[in-house]
């Protein structure tokens, strides 16, 4: 009994030492293996933190830490080529995806990785550390921008004579422009619209102008198509491509287009409890009830995001023999034009010690990578040219139905640049308020709650978000 204290003390000390030792060993072991593969799979927070010291190392070599959630071969190639051309620069790529568990329960692990990636990058950025260059996928770019954590690239572009805006799709570049400047540059973009069965539409005799139509026009056209009782029952199926989505697809899409009607960003007020929103919900529901929108099978139109020239032809080919790309309807007050999303948005950490080098590498990335639809017009042409020379496309086999190789349709392909040039509306369907809208409307569409109840709930939560 007398010795209990002593024993406890010594046991505690031993355990403590053991714990400290084992934790040290495991971390260093991990670092070794990562370095051994020649690829730093460490996480942004940690390695990025060390970059300051490395950046100023004595031999004058600079290190740019470039972080991205998804591993990207193009980034690696560009980094390697850039390092060869600039022997004084080392580029460290780090990825947020942990490959350790990719084979068992992949999806769930990815979600966890994303959450980690966001949290740790946020914390690192706040602490004035973090990677020098960031692929902003999954990161809160708006918040970074608001808190001056990203370098203003507008002044960089203006002040750099070697940067020529006409080399790029300027309409897409400007789309990322906010009132206070431009804080990220996309390496790539995608076009969103619809793939329509041109032959079937022609057979119904219904006419419309997709270059200028609003959602109301689309509904009218939709009812006409339904009334014509042609090849399909539904006009459009919710979801994108093969992924038939829930009803929240249209809610998100349409509310995003009408965002200004319900959310006043300047006075931080939402008006989802207005009759207008309830009636919008009812209108969307009637799309389903009238058969304009379907939640299964096929329709005259299919929502599609064109990710690359190859994807463009594959999408057109996959949904029929005689198809065409149509522009997405827009809200009344919006400009007509193709809707687009930027991809591979890259930003520079405002607290980076190697900003100039990072900017130079960013320009290099814009000129030398060809991801999806490249922002660089020359790369864009190249991609199209490569496809034409290739002659045939073997689509990835989904459901095995259309996985046979098919011939490249040069005439269709030539129209793609036209759609890209007409890109006018940046599609922005992310954001907390839209998430809240999408998550709570299902109760109305299934008939469990009234439109007014749902609208009240959305208003309740949206106000919390807006007033933070």
């Amino acid at each position, binding site marked *: 009994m007398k010795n209990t204290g002593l024993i406890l003390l010594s046991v505690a000390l031993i355990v403590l030492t053991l714990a400290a030792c084992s934790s040290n060993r495991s971390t260093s072991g991990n670092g070794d293996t990562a370095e051994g593969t020649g690829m730093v799979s460490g996480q942004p927070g940690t390695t990025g933190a060390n970059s300051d010291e490395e950046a100023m190392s004595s031999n004058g070599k600079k290190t740019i830490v470039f972080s991205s959630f998804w591993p990207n071969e193009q980034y690696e190639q560009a980094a390697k080529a850039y390092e060869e051309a600039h022997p004084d620069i080392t580029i460290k790529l780090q990825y947020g995806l942990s490959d350790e568990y990719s084979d068992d329960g992949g999806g769930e692990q990815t979600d966890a990785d994303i959450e980690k990636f966001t*949290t740790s990058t946020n914390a690192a950025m706040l602490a*004035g550390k973090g990677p020098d260059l960031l692929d902003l996928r999954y990161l809160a770019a708006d918040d970074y921008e608001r*808190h001056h*954590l990203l370098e203003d690239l507008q002044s960089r572009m203006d002040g750099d004579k070697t940067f020529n805006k006409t080399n790029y799709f300027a309409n897409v570049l400007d789309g990322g422009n906010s009132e206070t400047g431009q804080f990220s540059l996309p390496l790539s973009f995608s076009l969103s619209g619809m793939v329509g069965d041109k032959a079937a539409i022609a057979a119904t005799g219904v006419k419309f102008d997709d270059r200028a139509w609003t959602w109301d026009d689309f509904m009218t056209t939709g009812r006409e198509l339904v009334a014509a009782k042609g090849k399909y029952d539904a006009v459009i199926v919710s979801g994108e491509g093969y992924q038939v989505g829930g009803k929240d697809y249209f809610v998100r899409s349409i509310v995003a287009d009408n965002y200004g009607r319900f959310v006043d960003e300047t006075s931080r007020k939402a008006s989802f409890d207005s009759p207008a929103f309830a009636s919008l919900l009812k209108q969307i529901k009637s799309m389903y009830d009238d058969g304009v929108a379907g939640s299964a099978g096929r329709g005259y139109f299919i929502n599609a995001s064109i990710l690359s020239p190859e994807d463009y032809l594959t999408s057109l080919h996959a949904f029929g023999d005689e198809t065409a790309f149509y522009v997405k309807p827009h809200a009344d007050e919006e400009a007509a034009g193709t809707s687009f999303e930027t991809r591979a948005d890259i930003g520079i950490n405002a607290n980076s010690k190697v900003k100039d080098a990072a900017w130079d590498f960013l320009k290099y990335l814009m000129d030398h990578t060809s991801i999806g639809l490249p922002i660089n017009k020359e790369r864009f042409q190249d991609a199209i040219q490569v496809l034409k020379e290739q002659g045939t496309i073997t689509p990835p086999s989904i459901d095995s139905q259309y996985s046979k190789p098919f011939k490249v349709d040069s005439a269709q392909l030539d129209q793609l640049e036209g759609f890209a040039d007409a890109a006018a509306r940046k599609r922005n369907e992310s954001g*907390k308020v839209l998430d809240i809208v999408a998550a709570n409307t299902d109760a109305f569409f299934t008939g*469990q*709650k009234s439109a007014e109840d749902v609208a009240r709930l959305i208003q309740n939560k949206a106000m919390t*978000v807006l007033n*933070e």
Partner: protein
Amino acid sequence: MSSRWLRRLRGDGVAVWLFLGPSLIGFSLFYLIPFVLGFYESFTDGALGGRFVGLNNYTDLLHSASFRKAAGNTMLFTAIAVPLLIALSLTLAVLLNRPLFLRSWLRTSFMLPLVVPVASVVTVWQIFFDWNGTLNAWLHELGFARVDWMQSNWSMTIVVVMYIWKNIGYDMILLLAGLQSIPKDYYETASLEGAGRFHQFWHITLVYLTPTMFFVLLISIINSFKVFRETYLLAGDYPYDRLYMLQHYMNNMFFELDVQKLTAAATLMVGCIVVMTSGLLRAERKFREYTE
């Protein structure tokens, strides 16, 4: 200077450093310094080495309706849940403070929820309070409409229930100890003087329980902040506005990288806690002087 310092420390000086040293070093490093840094940051405009902006962040914070809502909800929750918990645990303790069949078993089962991890029972709460959940199934049987428990003003009631479920055993044990420390002859004397049960409870039990009560109150308040985990796992970062607490606000501010509002909110919250606790301690001291 140093000799005065030494004299002030007197005989216990070296021993104090020996015993307190390790804790004080670690405590300063991981709690005190971060808090002071945070406090400093709440007056600047950047995360690191920002400009001094005085009370700007605080005025911004007070202009945020969501912050006011969060503060109000947190106070409301504490004001409802803590007294309710103490009243219920006191009732239990008084009733259990006598020879009773299966007494130790009962005590065990009241305390068990305390050690059950939050994440383990979240699904059970969902089974009850979901839109399609058991509670609504019962309402349906009885012919009533469904209630969206977590998405209405009921949500706070539910969190209060979860809080009481988890903490009632702890408080009960503390109060039982307090009850057992009251000498039996006080009651006997009172009985002889003809005091009724109620009178005895009011003038003996409650009075002699008061010191314990201060401690119970403190522990209950600490634990009322911990209920955030349950709420978060059940309702996410934007729950119904009745449930939106200060920790939601601070958490969301962290994810939005708004260090200014985060640190200002933290400072205000700590300020309130300081005022409340020191008030509590002062009341306790007064009470002790009064009884002695």
